[in-house]
Each structure stands twice: as C-alpha cells, then as structure tokens.
C-alpha cells in the first residue's frame, strides 16, 4: 500500500498541474505589473498599462479562489474594479495603486509559500 505523503497526495490531485501552471503565470503577472508601477512611481500609468493591469487581475480573479487562494482572488477582484473605475488619464496614485501594491504583496506571499512547500 502506498503511504499517504504530501507528494503522492499531490499526484492524486487533478488540480495540482493546474495550480502549478497558475502559479507560473502568477509570477509573470507580478513581474509585468511591477514593471508598470516601477516606471515613474506609478504616476504615469497610461491607458494601455492600465488595461494590462486589469487583464492580469481579471485572469487571477477568475481562478485564484477555486484553487484555494481566496485572499489573492479577493484582491485581484478589487484591483480589477479599482482600475476599471479609475478614469484613463488619472495619475493612478489613488486607491487603485494602493490595492495593486497589496495584490503584488499577496502574489509574492503565495509564491514564497509555494517555494517553501
């Protein structure tokens, strides 16, 4: 009989490969958003950059909670709403920027936790 270890539990979990792929994409999304915010301290976020942030948040919001990352999913939804409500041309230093930074922190926490596991 095969002992029940975290490794073979993961093998039996049909969501494990999806979670792995999701976390891989999460790292890319984090880097992409980070790069946008780095430029000009987030003050010069244009329409295209704004759409990129919304797109990454949207993708994350749709799946995070289903894979067990509830907080990440909630923050992703908040980021999507905040940037959707922020008019193009807004300097982006308001609530949208603040929630985006929290979202990035949560991504880093999730990725760190995954590395440790």
């Amino acid at each position: 009989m095969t002992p029940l270890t975290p490794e073979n539990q993961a093998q039996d979990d049909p969501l494990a490969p999806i979670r792995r792929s999701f976390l891989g994409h999460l790292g890319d999304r984090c880097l992409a958003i980070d790069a946008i915010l780095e430029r000009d301290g987030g003050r010069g976020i244009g329409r295209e950059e704004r759409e990129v942030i919304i797109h990454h948040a949207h993708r994350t919001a749709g799946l995070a909670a289903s894979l067990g990352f509830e907080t990440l999913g909630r923050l992703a939804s908040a980021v999507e709403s905040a940037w959707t409500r922020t008019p193009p041309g807004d300097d982006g230093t308001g609530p949208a920027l603040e929630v985006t930074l929290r979202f990035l922190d949560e991504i880093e926490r999730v990725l760190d936790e995954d590395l440790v596991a």
Partner: protein
Amino acid sequence: MKILAVDDDRDFLAYLAVTLGELGYKNVTLANSASEGIRKIDFAVVDFDCIILDVQMPDMDGIELCARIRSMRKYRDTPIVMATTMADRDHIDRAFMAGATDYLTKPLDKVETRARLGVVHQLVREQLRANFAVANAGRDIRSAPAHGFMDSIPLKKVDGAIDMFAMSNYLTTMGIFRAVSMSAVGVQVTNAQRIHEIEGGGVFSEVMVDVANCLSDSLSGTRRMLSYAGGGTFVVLASRSAIPNAAEFGARINRYVSEFEAVYSDLGITLPEVTVGPAIHFRVSQLRAPRRLVEEAVARARETTGQVAVTA
C-alpha cells in the same frame, strides 16, 4: 451531455474540465478563443448539447459569440451558459439579450455549478425527448396544431424577448439587491384560447409573436425584457419606474395591436385583446427565489382575465 467550453484562459479551461468531470460531465470539448469555438461548432459531427462561454476574450467577446451561435439554426435552443468575473448589470443584461440561458460568475462555486448545470441538463433531456417525439410522430403531427395552447413559442426576433427559463436565471443572476429595483408585469391575451381553437396552433403562434412585438414597442426606449409563458400570457421585466400603471399600459399595448386590425380583418383572423395585471415588486418572501416575481406576475395576469379588459 456534450459540452463546448470557450475561454481564452487555458488554466481556467483546464480547471473547468476537471470540475465538469467531477460533476459527471465527461464529454467536454475545449476552445481557447471565439474563432476556435466557432470552428469546433462547424466541424462537430454531433452537435453540442450545451455551450459555456467566457465573456472577456480578445477579438470577439463571449457576448458577441453567444449571439453568433444563437443565430445558427441548429443552436437556436441550445443552452448557452456564460462563465465570467463580469458581474455588473450591463454585462448580465447584454448576455441575456444575446441569447444566454444562464450566467455563472467566477470564481465558480462548485455547488452552484452543479445545481445550475443540473437544470440545464434536464432542459437538454426534455428538448431531446421533444425532438424525438416530433421526429417519430408520423403524419399525425402535421395535422395537429403547430403549438399547443400552453406551449412556449419562440420569440427570437422580438426585441427584448428571452425565454422563461432564461428570465428566471436572469433574476437569480442579478441578485437580490438589484432585483429589488425591478418589477414584473403579466400581460394576458384575454381571447387567446378562442384564437387558438378557431385559428389553430400555427396562426396562434404568429398572433402571439405580433402581440410580443406590440408589447416590446410599447416600452421601447426603456431597458426591458419580455417572455412568453404559454396560454396567451406574457411577462415583462423592467425597472419599477419604467412600467406605467396597468390601465395605461394595457391601453398603450392595445393601440399597437389595433394597427394590425386591417390586416387581421383581411385574413379573417380574430384580433387579440390584451389586459395587464398589477406590477409585482420584489418582496422579502421572494428572497430565496427571485423567479417567484415572474411566477406571481403570470398568475396575477391570468386572474385578471375578463376583469380588467382593455380592448382596442
């Protein structure tokens, strides 16, 4: 049930396939874009029984894709379920108006997905049974009325029309907070039974489509949905402020109906007469089932038959 799922997020598609499999739906085809979805539909040897669409996709979004699929004759009645994070009223309204049958919001709740797809599966089975009955009925089916008196009648080309099942799902999707701002009104064709008996099911269905157009026109310029409940009864769903009082609304609809008088007279068809039931507003007792709003509007309209007759 053969399902096609279209989403530009491959991770979500993979998750959906696993979840559907766990719920017992193993025959799932995945497409990563609207154009791939259309290709899979075009080349399917056996038609899909149900289609699940994401809303936000590049090139062609899910709502446009939904309308495109709906315009295909063989997918006129196939359940189309939207699965999306877009939970605002505008997206929900546009999806249902494009022909969506139901609307699931991401992240998907497994219990809700099971329940909603269970109802869709039941609908698919009923459609298959009905199609089988029609195909195997022999010559008698041709001499019978095209539509029984209580049958549903497709109102595909009527502006604002959706089927009853989709209307119930629309209210459920809207949620209680937004449903509170809406009212449902039942509209009854008082001489419907007579028209059905005299003219037969084929003409009856044409007359009901005309009434539906009159109903839709009488509320043009407002955001409204209407549906046919069978038996000459319609339901209109609109914001509270958009619906006039019953007498005024009835008179307005009948004015539109009267425009058909000359044509109907030439054809020897009885002109429909319409009464309007009271506007039903959302109440606490309907919290768990917003669709009761629609059911009550239908019941109240049928009660008024012969009582508040407003004729053209």
